[in-house]
């Protein structure tokens, strides 16, 4: 997953001649158009990762926007001031028109990023994408060792193919980000993953601990790390950051279950991020459709994307602080974390307007933390694989 999305990256510094723009924007009073937009152009994917960030209810291919509809979206995004687009999925290369879409985005002046599992790419396809103006490639890895990696992906041969595509990426001179999603069953491989990113000549590494919504919530007992594992993980990342400064930049996302303060999810609902689903829904977060009772507008409606961002009910429902209940309402941190994640609040409490239980001030925090700790120490290692059938339990 991409991380212009409100995860801390470079610390803001007033005296910095190269300030990170979104940090300034995030404090703006007005909700200007986001700098970057995530385009989930399909939910189809050959992999079956048990922590997939897609919703459990996947959009089938018949519902996907057409090539012409996506092109219209891209032109509109460029026109209203979006600067970057992330082509994601599902697996974006499962769409036959990806090169055409990247070309269209580049011609419109957008900076283009491909977030891919890599298993469907050929060298020729990658080279066509580079020629079409693709600026950056982000490849997900499930580990460093073949049997574990392929098992997590639910796809035989995945790891070997990813290594090959990462090599081609650098051969065609595209910058590479290695995206490593971490959980209890692969955290022990973190030092090797960092080394792998260096060996692959990556510019960036995302060490992203699983966030527990949707598919990952179904698989929480098989994925939740122990506190000790997490502390070790943080130590390794900090050491590597120091050691690899200027060679490999490392973004780090921790699981919020073990934190006292919730994360400022998406930089705050409707403040600096939106994504577009395969069927064209404009969403405040890629998991937002898991919240029932919200009506998300589509790019197929009569409204412009800018109108949907500014005025639609779904974006305004949890924007700012007016919707908050206690303990958020009178909390000193209410404009710092905006009460955490709405999808997580909904999934764990049944009401998206409740405080995210990741917050120590939530009445449910203690219960959930204890449950996570128990699960982390438990014996459940079998995955429920992600698929269109609602999931399949891994065979023993």
């Amino acid at each position: 997953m991409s991380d212009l999305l409100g995860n801390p990256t470079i610390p803001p510094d007033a005296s910095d001649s190269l300030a990170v723009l979104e940090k300034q924007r995030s404090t703006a009073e007005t909700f200007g158009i986001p700098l970057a937009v995530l385009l989930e152009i399909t939910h189809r994917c050959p992999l079956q990762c048990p922590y997939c960030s897609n919703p459990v209810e996947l959009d089938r291919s018949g519902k996907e926007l057409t090539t012409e509809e996506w092109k219209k979206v891209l032109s509109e995004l460029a026109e209203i001031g979006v600067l970057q687009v992330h082509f994601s999925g599902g697996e974006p290369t499962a769409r036959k028109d990806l090169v055409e879409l990247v070309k269209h985005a580049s011609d419109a002046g957008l900076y283009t990023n491909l977030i891919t599992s890599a298993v469907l790419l050929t060298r020729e396809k990658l080279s066509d994408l580079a020629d079409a103006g693709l600026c950056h490639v982000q490849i997900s890895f499930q580990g460093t060792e073949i049997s574990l990696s392929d098992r997590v992906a639910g796809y035989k041969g995945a790891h070997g193919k990813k290594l090959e595509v990462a090599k081609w990426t650098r051969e065609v001179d595209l910058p590479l980000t290695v995206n490593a999603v971490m959980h209890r069953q692969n955290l022990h491989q973190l030092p090797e993953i960092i080394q792998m990113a260096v060996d692959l000549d990556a510019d960036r590494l995302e060490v992203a601990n699983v966030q527990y919504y949707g598919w990952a919530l179904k698989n929480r007992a098989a994925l939740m790390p122990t506190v000790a594992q997490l502390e070790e993980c943080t130590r390794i990342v900090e050491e590597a950051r120091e050691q690899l400064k200027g060679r490999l930049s490392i973004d780090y996302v921790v699981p919020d279950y073990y934190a006292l303060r919730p994360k400022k999810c998406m930089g705050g609902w409707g403040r600096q991020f939106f994504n577009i689903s395969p069927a064209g829904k404009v969403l405040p977060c890629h998991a937002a459709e898991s919240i029932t009772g919200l009506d998300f507008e589509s790019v197929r409606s009569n409204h412009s994307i800018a109108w949907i961002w500014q005025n639609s009910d779904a974006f305004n429902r949890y924007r700012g602080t007016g919707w908050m209940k206690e303990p958020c309402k009178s909390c000193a941190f209410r404009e710092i974390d905006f009460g955490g994640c709405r999808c997580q609040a909904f999934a764990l409490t049944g009401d998206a307007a409740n405080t995210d239980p990741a917050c120590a001030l939530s009445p449910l925090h203690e219960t959930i933390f204890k449950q996570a700790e128990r699960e982390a120490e438990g014996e459940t290692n079998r995955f429920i694989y992600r698929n269109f059938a609602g999931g399949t339990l891994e065979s023993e």
Partner: protein
Amino acid sequence: MAGPRHISVSEPSRPVLPRHAKLRYDETRQVWVILAPERVLAPDEIAVEVLQLCNGERSVGDISDQLAAKYAAPREAILTDVIAMLQDLADKGFLTEAREKTS
């Protein structure tokens, strides 16, 4: 492995933005930006001026000469500032150096 990633900026360096970092004027927000993987940087006026001169041919020394002449300012002070700014960008991974011709 490709060329060295971590460059050390000095007077003879001939820096250039790498392919994945694009300097562009953002019409909507009326600011210059550097677009990079998962980042949008907002360089200040001086940084923009320096970066516009970084074409992989001019050295840091040449750039400082030009700016010193343009602003009638002491060259040494300008050189120090230019190196600091470019090194910062290099440390963030958004600056590369033109390679020496080997043939």
